[in-house]
């Protein structure tokens, strides 16, 4: 059975770029779900089978840190890994994301090779 990924970013452009980078990196998913913020992401995780989440941090309505916090409180999704893809690189913010369960981070801008290097071992 194939794997499914959820892309969480308020920029539709960035969601398309991440999807393209996954294909260029040779990483295939059966389904690519998309959410524009943490609230939409939680709603998708409630009803779809998702194997890994790639999430931005700075987003409207519910940002990536709040999304991680809320997700960690829900038994049906707390074990789904989340990889942060963000312009945020500060140790405090990335450290907080990891303390809430993020398994790694990729800095924007990124290359398909970087996506493969970080995401590949997680699949």
């Amino acid at each position, binding site marked *: 059975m194939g794997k499914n990924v959820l892309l969480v970013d*308020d*920029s*539709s*452009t*960035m969601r*398309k*770029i991440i999807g*393209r980078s996954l294909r260029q990196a040779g990483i295939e998913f059966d389904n690519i779900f998309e959410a524009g913020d943490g609230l939409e992401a939680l709603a998708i995780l409630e009803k779809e089978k998702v194997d890994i989440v790639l999430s931005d941090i*700075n*987003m*409207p309505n519910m940002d990536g840190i709040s999304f991680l916090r809320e997700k960690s409180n829900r038994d049906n999704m707390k074990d789904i890994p989340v990889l942060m893809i*963000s*312009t*945020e*690189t*500060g*140790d*405090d*913010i*990335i450290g907080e994301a990891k303390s809430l369960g993020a398994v790694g981070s990729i*800095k*924007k*801008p*990124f*290359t398909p090779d970087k996506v493969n290097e970080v995401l590949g071992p997680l699949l």
Partner: protein
Amino acid sequence: MEIKEKIIDAAIEIFSTMVMMDVSVSEEGVNDSGRLQDTITGLIGLAGTHKGVLAIHIPHPVALAITSNFLGIDISEINEDVEDAVGELANMLGGNVKTVLTENGRDIDLSLPSTISGSSYHFQPSKDVEKVVVRFETAHGPFLIELQLEK
């Protein structure tokens, strides 16, 4: 690293890795963005220990070419895709500038990106600021990146 150099390095990296477009710093120096004609501006605010705004001013034809490259499809009019792409460019540039101004990421907050588009406007969000303006060239025309920090 001087902030102007960081802006230049960040822009070249963003355009080469994400937009698939070569950009270079113009030999034509500029000190002000002046009156912007048929342009779209992507901007992101900085708050905290450094307050200001980072903006990228892109003439409409150049913005169409950038968005077409960004998305891999032909874009022929200024629409939501162009606004989103230009906003995301501002977001990535703002994130890079933030890394120069702060060590831990917590003492400066970035706003969500927004855009302005019009046939003729002047960009002056604050009066008492230090300005860095860099003009870049592409095969489709020039664009400007402007950082204004409150003194």
